[in-house]
C-alpha cells in the first residue's frame, strides 16, 4: 500500500567504498511493492537539501515488511543518507512508478546491469526465480570491491552471474556490452531486462532489437514529486515523439519497443 512512512533502519553498512546497503522496516510500502518500482527518500529532514531522492527497490521481504536499498554516494543527499545509523528512522515514500512486466513462468531471462543500476535487477531476480524462470545476469562493475558485492548477492539468489570489470580483476575484461555480445549468442533468451548508464542501456536495447528479443529498460531522470504531478521528469523516448513521457509515473521501466 503506498504510504509515507517513518522507516526504522534495521541495518546500514558500507559494503564497498562509497556503496551502501540500507535495510529498513516499512511494512506498508513493502506490502504492495513490485520489482522495478522505487521509493522516494528524504535525506536529512531539513529544507536543505530539500527534495526527496529516488532509489530503486534492491530487495523486499514482504513477510518481514522490510525494504533494502543499495546506493552510491554521489552528492549531498546520498552523503547525508549514508550517515543514518541503525535504529534511527528515515522518511520514505512509495512504492512509486511502474515496475517491470513479469514474464510467463518458466522463461529464460537475461538481466543486464551497469554499476548501481544492478539494484532493481536484484529484486526482479528474486521474483523471477520464485516463478521458476531461468535467470542469468551479466553486469559491469566499477571495481573489484563493487563486483564482489553484486556477485555475492546474485549467488545468494542462486543466479548464474557474469561480471565485467574494466581492469579484468573479476570476470570479463571490458564493458558489460562487450560481455553481452560474447555470451548472449550461446544462451537461450526469452526476455532482457536492463538498468544502468544511458549508453549501456542503448547498446543493450540495440542488441535486443536486432535479435528480436523483447526487453525492458529502467530509466533515470531528475525528479521532484515522484507521482506524475509536477511534470519535471520529462523524457522523449524517441527523438520523433511529440510528447514527453514522465519517468516517475509512466516509468521508470519502459518497454524497449518504446525506445529509439
Amino acid at each position: 500500500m503506498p504510504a509515507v512512512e517513518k522507516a526504522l533502519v534495521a541495518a546500514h553498512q558500507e559494503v564497498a567504498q562509497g556503496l551502501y546497503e540500507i535495510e529498513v522496516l516499512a511494512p506498508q510500502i513493502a506490502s504492495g511493492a513490485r520489482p522495478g518500482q522505487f521509493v522516494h527518500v528524504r535525506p536529512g529532514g531539513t529544507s536543505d537539501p530539500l527534495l526527496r531522492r529516488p532509489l530503486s527497490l534492491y530487495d523486499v521481504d514482504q513477510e518481514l515488511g522490510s525494504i533494502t536499498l543499495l546506493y552510491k554516494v554521489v552528492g549531498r543527499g546520498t552523503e547525508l543518507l549514508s550517515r543514518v545509523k541503525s535504529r534511527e528512522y528515515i522518511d520514505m515514500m512509495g512504492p512509486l512508478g511502474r515496475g517491470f512486466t513479469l514474464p510467463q513462468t518458466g522463461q529464460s531471462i537475461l538481466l543486464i546491469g551497469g554499476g548501481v543500476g544492478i539494484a532493481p535487477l536484484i529484486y526482479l531476480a528474486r521474483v523471477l526465480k520464485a516463478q521458476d524462470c531461468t535467470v542469468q545476469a551479466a553486469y559491469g562493475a566499477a571495481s573489484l570491491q563493487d563486483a564482489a558485492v553484486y556477485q555475492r548477492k546474485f549467488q545468494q539468489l542462486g543466479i548464474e552471474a557474469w561480471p565485467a570489470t574494466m581492469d579484468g580483476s573479476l570476470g570479463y575484461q571490458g564493458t558489460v556490452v562487450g560481455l553481452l555480445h560474447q555470451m548472449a549468442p550461446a544462451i537461450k533468451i526469452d526476455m532482457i531486462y536492463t538498468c544502468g548508464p544511458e549508453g549501456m542501456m542503448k547498446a543493450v536495447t540495440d542488441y535486443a532489437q536486432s535479435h528480436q528479443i523483447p526487453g525492458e529498460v529502467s530509466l533515470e531522470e531528475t525528479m521532484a514529486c515522484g507521482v506524475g504531478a509536477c511534470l519535471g521528469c520529462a523524457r522523449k523516448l524517441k527523438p520523433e515523439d511529440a510528447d514527453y513521457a514522465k519517468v516517475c509515473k509512466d516509468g521508470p521501466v519502459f518497454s524497449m519497443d518504446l525506445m529509439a
Partner: protein
Amino acid sequence: MHKDAAISKPGPDISVNLGGLWMKNPVAAASGTFGYGFEYQDYIDSASIGAVIVKGTTLEKRVGNPPPRICETAAGMLNAIGLENPGVEVFVTEYLPRLRQHGVTVVANIAGNTVEDYEHTAAIIDKQSGVAAIELNISCPNVKQGGLQFGTDPAMVEAVVAAVKARTSLPVIPKLSPNVTDIVTIARAAQRGGADALAMINTLLGMAIDIKTRRPVLGNVFGGLSGPAIKPVALRMIYQVYREVDLPILGGGGIVNTADALEFIMAGATAVSIGTGLFVNPTLPAELSLGIKQYLTEHGLDKIGDLVGAAHRF
C-alpha cells in the same frame, strides 16, 4: 476529551472566503505542483484540501520544455516545465468531471500569450460546473507586446484581468509575478481590472550552471525558483500589498510547515498555498490545517480571520 465537551466546543473556524471562493480550510495546493488532483490520491484526499489549483491550462495543448526541467538549489528548486498541458478542452472533458464527482474544490489556473487566449480559455471554463474560481497566471510572455511578461506591466495586468472578468462570473484571482520592481503598483492594477483576490507569489526567475559541462542546467536556461529559498521575498511582498490594497490574498512561496503558514497569515494572507512543500511532504495540507487550528485554540482565537494581518498591528 469528553464527547459532550467536544460538541459544545467545536474549535476555531478555519474556513475562509477568498473573494468569493469559499474554502473549507485555508490551505490550497499550488498550481503545477498537484497535477489535476489525483496524482497524489494514494497519499492525500484532494477533497480534504481547501482548494486544489490545477495545473496551468492554455487554450491549445502545449508539450512543454525540453529536459532537464527541474534542478535543486539551496533550500529550493528551479523549474522550467513550459506549461505542459493538454489544452482547455481536454481539461474540461477529461479531468474536470472526475474532480467534480469527487467533491474537490477546484480552482482553474489559466495562462496565455495574448489577452484573447485568456478570454477564450476563461469563457470555456466559465460554462462548466465544478470550478470554484479562476486563477490567472500572468507570468507569461505577451507575444503582441514583444514578449514582455503580462505580470510586469500595470497596464497589461489591468487589461487581462478586466478581459477575463468580462467573460466569467467566477471569482478571478490574478497570480502576481514577483519579478517586478514595485509589487504594489501591480496589485493596484489588478484591483482596477476587477480582481476578486490576489494570489502571490509565483516563482522568481533564476538559473543554474553545471560547472562540469559549463552549460546551463535547465533545458530552457532560465527557470522559476520556488521553495523555502523564496519565503522571505514572498512574505515581504504580501506584507506590502496587504497594507496598500484592499483585496484578500492567497499567500504562498516556500511554505513547508505550520509556522511558515502562520507567518503568511500574519503578513496579510487570508489563505495559503503550498507547492514545492508538497513534493517533500504530500500530507502537508492536512498538517497545516491541523496546526493552524491548534495555534488558534492555544491563543484563544475563534477564527482564522482574527490572525490575518496581525503583524501590521505594531
